[in-house]
């Protein structure tokens, strides 16, 4: 019984002892003195650049978000509804619209994560905590790239919808000609 207790306590102690080690590895980047000096020297200018980017990206999110939303709600959904209203098949168009909407949701979520990370980076005092500042920018950089990837995907779906529309038109023309004959 005492042996079991001893082993349990030992394992618990090992597990608890490894937490600081895991944290240390998780913090990632180790910066040299030269690198830290570089961050401290450019602290003010880099913060200013980040602030400007934060503001301009917010405007971009608002304006482009509206446009992406309108592509779906004012055009794709409306045309799909009109096709359904006329009892015609629109499976391709509906599938592309659905993918577009789910990508738009991803875009929203990825932007929230990116904005939160950039805000976090801006709150860090780069003169006192240069390594944390560096890590925060690194994560924000990846977050912004994800948002850009979503934008590229949205553009691809816009093109796919156009192709599906061309196909729908051809099918419609074939049906119309067939009914004439």
């Amino acid at each position, binding site marked *: 019984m005492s042996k079991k207790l001893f082993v349990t306590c030992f394992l618990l102690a090992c597990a608890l002892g490894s937490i600081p080690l895991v944290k240390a590895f998780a913090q990632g*980047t*180790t*910066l*040299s003195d030269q*690198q830290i000096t*570089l*961050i401290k020297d*450019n602290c003010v*200018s*880099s913060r200013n*650049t*980040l*602030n400007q*980017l934060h*503001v301009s*990206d*917010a*405007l*971009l*999110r*608002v*304006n*482009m978000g*509206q*446009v992406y939303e*309108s*592509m779906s709600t*004012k*055009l794709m*959904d*409306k*045309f799909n*509804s*009109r*096709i359904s*209203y*006329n009892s015609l098949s629109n499976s391709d168009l509906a599938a592309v619209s659905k993918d577009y909407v789910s990508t738009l949701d991803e875009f*929203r*979520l990825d*932007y*929230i994560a990116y*904005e939160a990370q950039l805000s976090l980076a801006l709150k860090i005092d780069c003169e006192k905590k240069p390594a944390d500042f*560096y890590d925060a*920018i690194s994560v*924000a*950089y990846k977050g*912004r790239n994800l948002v*850009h990837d979503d*934008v590229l995907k949205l*553009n691809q779906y*816009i*093109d796919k*919808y*156009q192709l599906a*529309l061309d196909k*729908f*038109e051809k099918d*419609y*023309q074939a049906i*119309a000609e067939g009914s004439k004959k």
Partner: protein
Amino acid sequence: MSEVKMVLKIEELSPYSKHRFLILITASILISFVLVAISMALYNSSGAAQLDLSRPGYVSIRSQAVTNDNDFENYASTGAINQKAISEFKILYSKQATKTKAVDAFGGDPLNFASLGLELTTE
């Protein structure tokens, strides 16, 4: 008369009876704090905060936000589908698609360490 006396006696015995008003005020403040915390959490997590350009720090760009998207024509969801309707939609869609794709949103590399003057190499 005896009932009134009994009620008075119960009130005298209750530990909260003397501080009822204070408890009411404190509880109201606590509830309002909780509700404000919940609404702030929702405001931040829902993405509304990111779209809110009325926040401090966004004064300079507030006027540039598009508030009127009337040039983005709303296609009618009812009506007949014929060649004319399809062609009309294709023209409308193509016009808006070109406009949308023209902006390389969130492109470029402004967060690059070199752009920020923090060109570093990890050890």
